């Protein structure tokens, strides 16, 4: 692609816009090039951050991008969606020395954009091993696994039930963080490695599991989590009550003008997805957009900087407000909450309620895999090589870790690929990719 899709205006205007080259050079030169750097340690995929930044400073942008993608095949998406404040940038030594960390995420974007804009292919499929691996789920875990296997010479097919690959990067991240088309484009780069994508394909429905087991030497499960959990309160099924993932998916797949948003929006929950929902609702024109959370400010699961984003965009926050029921005449009009400690009631007027209280595990779906054990929380149990209790099946990402960052899913998928390689190759897997 000659020009990467970005929105510079309107409700989807980027939170962290691309750097100009002078800006990138100044920032890259500010990097101290730490040895055994804390930023690299803090990255779940252990990208050699000082190395890629030094390469930006030297003008070796292709080399920089290679360092990034070698560790993290979704380096472009992660540059946009990673909670860098909590990971690499949070670990930067400049937090103490200059009180402002190196902008690692945005620098990573400079390098990855450079090669994507120029269609520079960095990797090739490895010499064919003659073995085939099926990947179930085209999200970060599946893609991380697929890329690694393709480079190692496996024939890889990704089965994904969505119209487009990319998983949550494509369908569930606030649009001001990552543009849908970008997430899709980066996922599709894996086609250069010979990875086959079967979209709109439900394993177990469109493709019988028995067929996969017959056709493939190993199977990777990277199906993530399921739908938003139920509140279990009266009025939950009233029109005007939506779940956060559906709301965000709508704005990821439609034009801003076509996304329906209320005038008074209440978002139940206080995680990072809740912040995405409340801020996007505000950006889309809600007069009031508020978080309603049953516990206190300090208990919020959202990262501090996400909370800051919400506040800076003018969103409201109601704490110690446990939803009791949703009232309304044929549609959601009021949310009644109770303070669990004092018993005091709070009634908030609304015309839209967004549920963001976390995704349910996909235990029912996962139980369909033969002899693949789940723990008591519905997570797939894996060993150090990311192999499940059924030796043919490997797993990684949210369905294993219970729900973490995209970058953790990529790391999990990649580790599983090495596990698969070790199993299928017999010998210790010496990855071509560091």
């Amino acid at each position: 692609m000659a020009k990467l899709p970005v929105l510079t205006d309107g409700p989807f205007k980027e939170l962290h816009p691309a750097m100009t080259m002078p800006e990138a050079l100044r920032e890259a030169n500010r990097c101290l090039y730490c040895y055994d750097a804390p930023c690299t340690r803090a990255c779940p995929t252990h990208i050699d951050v000082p190395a890629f930044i030094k390469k930006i400073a030297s003008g070796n942008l292709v080399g920089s991008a290679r360092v990034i993608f070698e560790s993290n095949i979704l380096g472009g998406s992660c540059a946009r969606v990673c909670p860098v404040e909590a990971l690499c940038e949070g670990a930067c030594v400049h937090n103490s020395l200059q009180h402002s960390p190196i902008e690692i995420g945005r620098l990573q974007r400079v390098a990855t954009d450079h090669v994507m804009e120029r269609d520079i292919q960095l990797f090739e499929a490895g010499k064919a091993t003659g073995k085939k691996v099926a990947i179930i789920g085209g999200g970060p875990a599946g893609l991380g696994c697929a890329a690694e296997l393709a480079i190692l010479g496996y024939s890889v097919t990704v089965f994904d039930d969505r119209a487009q690959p990319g998983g949550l990067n494509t369908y569930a991240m606030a649009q001001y963080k990552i543009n849908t088309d970008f997430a899709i484009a980066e996922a599709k780069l894996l086609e250069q490695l010979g990875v086959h994508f079967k979209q709109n394909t439900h394993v177990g429905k469109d493709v019988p599991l028995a067929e996969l087991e017959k056709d493939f030497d190993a199977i990777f499960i990277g199906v993530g989590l399921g739908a938003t959990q139920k509140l279990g309160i009266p009025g939950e099924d009233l029109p005007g009550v939506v779940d956060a993932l559906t709301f965000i998916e709508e704005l990821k797949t439609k034009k801003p003008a076509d996304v329906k948003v209320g005038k008074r929006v209440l978002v139940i929950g206080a995680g990072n997805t809740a912040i995405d929902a409340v801020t996007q609702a505000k950006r889309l024109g809600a007069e009031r957009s508020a978080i309603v959370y049953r516990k206190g400010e300090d208990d919020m699961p959202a990262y501090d900087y996400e909370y800051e984003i919400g506040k800076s965009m003018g969103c409201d926050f109601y704490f110690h407000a446990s939803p009791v029921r949703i009232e309304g005449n044929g549609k959601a009009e009021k949310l009644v909450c109770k303070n669990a400690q004092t018993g005091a009631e709070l009634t908030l007027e609304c015309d839209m309620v967004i549920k963001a209280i976390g995704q349910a595990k996909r235990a029912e779906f996962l139980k369909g895999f033969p002899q693949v054990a789940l723990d008591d929380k519905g997570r797939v149990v894996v060993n150090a090589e990311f192999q499940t209790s059924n030796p043919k099946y490997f797993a990684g990402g949210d369905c294993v870790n219970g729900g973490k960052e995209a970058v953790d899913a990529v790391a999990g998928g990649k580790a599983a690929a090495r596990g698969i390689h070790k199993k299928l190759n017999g010998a210790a897997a010496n990855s071509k990719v560091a």
Partner: protein
Amino acid sequence: MKNSVIDLTTNTGGIISPNPFWLASAPPTNMGSMVERAFEAGWGGAVWKTIGQPIVNVSSRLATLDYRGSKMIGLNNIELITDRPIETNFKEIEKCKKRFPTHAVIASLMVESKRDAWHEIVKRTNDSGADGIELNFGCPHGMSERGMGSAMGQVPEYTCMVTEWVKEVAKVPVLVKLTPNVGSILPPGRAAVKGGADGLSLINTINSVMGVDVDTFMPYPMVNGMAAHGGYCGPAVKPIALNMVGELARDKETKHIPISGIGGVETWRDAVEFMLLGSTSVQVCTAVMHYGYRIVEDLIDGLTNYLREKGMTSPKQLVGKSAAAVTDWGNLDMNYKVLARVDKDKCINCNLCFVACDDGAHQAIKLVPDQARGGKAYPEIVDEECVGCNLCSLVCPSPGCISMVRMDGETQKLSWREVQEKGIAIKPGHANKNIERA
């Protein structure tokens, strides 16, 4: 505290200026209107762009060394002396002197190596009212191919001879500007003194190729597909200039002669360093080409505040104060020992000291996890291996974190010269304790 009165007036070999900050002979002193604007901005003196038979220049002429985001830490030029008639330059000097009688205007001169030619131009300088003359024996490009500039400065006999010719007729002090493109600065410096120079100015620019465009394969600055070596100046050359100034300031034959220091002066701090090593005044070019005449404001202000802080009243008190501290290696005390000491409270865990010492020095730092500090690894100095080289403290980005602490107990000094002179046998190798006698 009562503020002392600071007088920045400077006398460089008989050339008086209201402050020690002069513009070097270069594009910023190309013509009268420029020098007048510079004086208005506060410059104490200006060495006129070299006057001689006008030349034809090429374009382009300049190229820079940029480093890690800093523009122009070095500058290179292939511009020659004035391209304007001799007559015009002297007329403008006359006009400038009338308007600024107390500022120093120094005529930089360069003509072919003939006694008559030098006499002629020096006489015209006398008539112009200029306060001094600077002989350009330094330009390393273009003019040197014509037997002038550094072609003179590189041959002490010529330097002496032309200086003598100039002194035969000059009615104002004569400075000789030296080229650094020599094996040692002492022979040309001594030759200038022998020829009767009233002062020395140095350094002129250094032979250089600034770089090559790796896309077009063309060196900079490119002139229609070719390039020539140019003269290198700017902040990057300061250490070279300081060494040469210092050498002349402590040499028996030249130490009495005033020096106008040149080479990478951009701030008052640079100027103070030049003065401490023996310069009476300093000349500035690159910094002005980068930022304009306005930088003189902080040169003056910074120097004034510095002198006040030091309880001094004149920059004269700085001149040569550090010159004697620079000596030959053989005079250094081999028994003086420093060891690195780390203040963990100031450590930011970048580990740069570790890798620098491990790969670039003496493997004298270990990274040791500190459970009291969350298990983070901190540098620990292995005293037996530390040779006190300074490297760790130099790479450390956190001020005050690594210090070099004296550990020898101030024992008796022992220099290599003494070892030689007294025939003391010592064991070779680095030592972190006193020199072992074999």
